[in-house]
């Protein structure tokens, strides 16, 4: 077996260990579930509101978007955050000091983040099915759509997360990322159909992957008739594949370059400097 293959297999083990750690630890599990739980509670209270022009519950309509947002949080944002934290505590330098360690590190990271993103989508779905009417997950085609949308979404989101995590040096810096993402959530139709928004805002939302991930998940989970409430009165699968695909290609081209540059700059003294800064902040 080639040495790279050995590292990929070590990465598989690493992904499983990290996934197990984050799903058996109360604090980590809370950070995975906190956004959907809060959102489900809020939307449950608003369940009697309806989607404009239909008699369909706004609460039920928002479930796929909320789950999509949670994929963004647990896939992209959490990956970026763990990259900055791993640089701060020396995990990344350890990978650099190990032969083919970066291959194993990244394999593990992508796997464990994929795992938690999937868990973060599936587990809140269970109470949602009991609390909200009108979600249609009985058919095979629903699940097929869900799987490909989720897979393509993750391929689009994870490289962006890796780039963000490499660009921002500290966990604090990531705060600057979270705010725009929250704003993006507001305009991306997570809680409310964007067809009700001004046209320029619709265009803005459609540039980013979050809208398309939400749209794809809605197409998987909601009745066919609700397509009428979307932009263009369609689920637009081709456009979804197109936009998410473009983000995926851009991310996969950019991420290795940025990651390599970031890894090259890692050294013991760089870790020590960051550690010192982190200690000064806590004082």
């Amino acid at each position, binding site marked *: *077996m*080639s*040495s790279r293959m*050995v*590292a990929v*297999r*070590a990465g598989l*083990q*690493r992904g499983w*260990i990290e996934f197990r*750690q984050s799903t058996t*630890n109360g604090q980590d599990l809370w950070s995975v579930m906190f956004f959907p739980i809060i959102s489900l509670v809020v939307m449950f209270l608003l369940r009697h509101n309806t989607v404009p022009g239909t008699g369909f519950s706004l609460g039920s309509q928002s479930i796929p978007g909320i789950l999509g947002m949670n994929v963004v949080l647990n896939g992209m944002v959490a990956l970026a955050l763990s990259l900055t934290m*791993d640089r701060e*505590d*020396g*995990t990344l*330098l*350890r990978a*650099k*000091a*190990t*032969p*083919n*360690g970066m291959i*194993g590190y990244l394999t593990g990271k992508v796997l464990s983040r994929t795992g938690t993103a999937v868990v973060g989508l599936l587990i809140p779905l269970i109470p949602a099915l009991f609390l909200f009417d009108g979600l249609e997950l009985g058919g095979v085609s629903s699940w097929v759509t869900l799987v490909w949308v989720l897979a393509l979404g993750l391929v689009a989101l994870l490289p962006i997360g890796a780039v963000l995590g490499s660009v921002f040096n500290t966990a604090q810096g990531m705060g600057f990322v979270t705010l725009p993402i929250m704003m993006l959530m507001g305009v991306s139709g997570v809680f409310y159909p964007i067809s009700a928004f001004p046209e320029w805002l619709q265009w803005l939302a459609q540039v980013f992957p979050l809208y398309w991930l939400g749209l794809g998940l809605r197409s998987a989970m909601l009745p066919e008739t609700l397509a009428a409430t979307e932009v263009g009165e369609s689920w637009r699968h081709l456009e979804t594949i197109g936009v998410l695909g473009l983000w995926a290609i851009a991310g996969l081209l950019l991420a290795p370059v940025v990651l390599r540059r970031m890894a090259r700059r*890692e*050294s*013991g*003294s760089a*870790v*020590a400097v960051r*550690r010192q800064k982190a200690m000064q902040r806590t004082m």
Partner: protein
Amino acid sequence: MDAGDNDHRPGDPVRPLPPSQGAEPVIDTQGLRMRYGSADVLHGVDLRVHQGEVVALLGPNGAGKTTTIEILEGFRRRSAGEVRVLGVDPDDGDEAWRARLGIVLQSWRDHGKWRVRELLDHLGRYYTPYGTPRRARPYDAGELLGLVGLTDRADAVVGTLSGGQRRRLDVAIGLVGRPDLLFLDEPTVGFDPQARREFHELVQRLSDLEDTAILLTTHDLDEAEKLADRIVILAGGRIVADGNAAELAGRVSGKAEVRYSRDGEHHVESVEDATGHVRELFATYGEAIGDLEVRRISLEDVYMTLVHEFESGRRTEAPSELTEVAR
């Protein structure tokens, strides 16, 4: 320290000189320079370390120790000079080269959620393809835990280890690939005396049994004297001294301190030939001599003198530079 305490306990074999002086050195730098912006941190460092040799790199803070080590580890690109580590330029070092290095840095806090044995097992896996008939890689995790005295903490979560245990785990991870060359950056900071003693025994075992070359930095001069075959003192980006403890002492002064009492009166004398002087004392005064103590100049004295010499040397240079600027 008295005359008998010459770093070897009775019964210990005297460590032989590094056997492979003729072979290609494990570390070989010539004219190594490093410049950050307009500030030179290293001005031409020539350093050679041979297989199985333990070399201690000493020097005041800011002398360039960490920079030197990071260049050798391939973590930092040098500005100029020739560098060969295990026969390879660290800037071009591939993964097979990396597999032969062990690195223990000062401030690891990584993998806090992992379990001790799990982490050691995991990191060992990457070394499997680099084993050779002479050197099986990786080290067995259980054996390694025994070696660093962490067997009873094998299932502990890394984040719950004490400072000294964490350090020993770092050393174990540095060793897991059975390195030909091990870098230890201030390995015993935060160790209690017992842990320190055990660590010293571990380092000696490694260089004896595994033929691992070790380059360590420390501020603990006793540690350097105990562990190192050779001591290199770095000050202001230059090597100001290179040799074993006795040779360094010789460079500063050949004198030893002789303390004794004669008829109850205490004397201290600084002499070149301590043995001859003592022989003469006994011949002349016989039974009247008591409380005899011969104190070789300590490494600390040598270190302070050399660093001070260097720093005062730099101070005398300063005025001429100033006048040049003034002109």
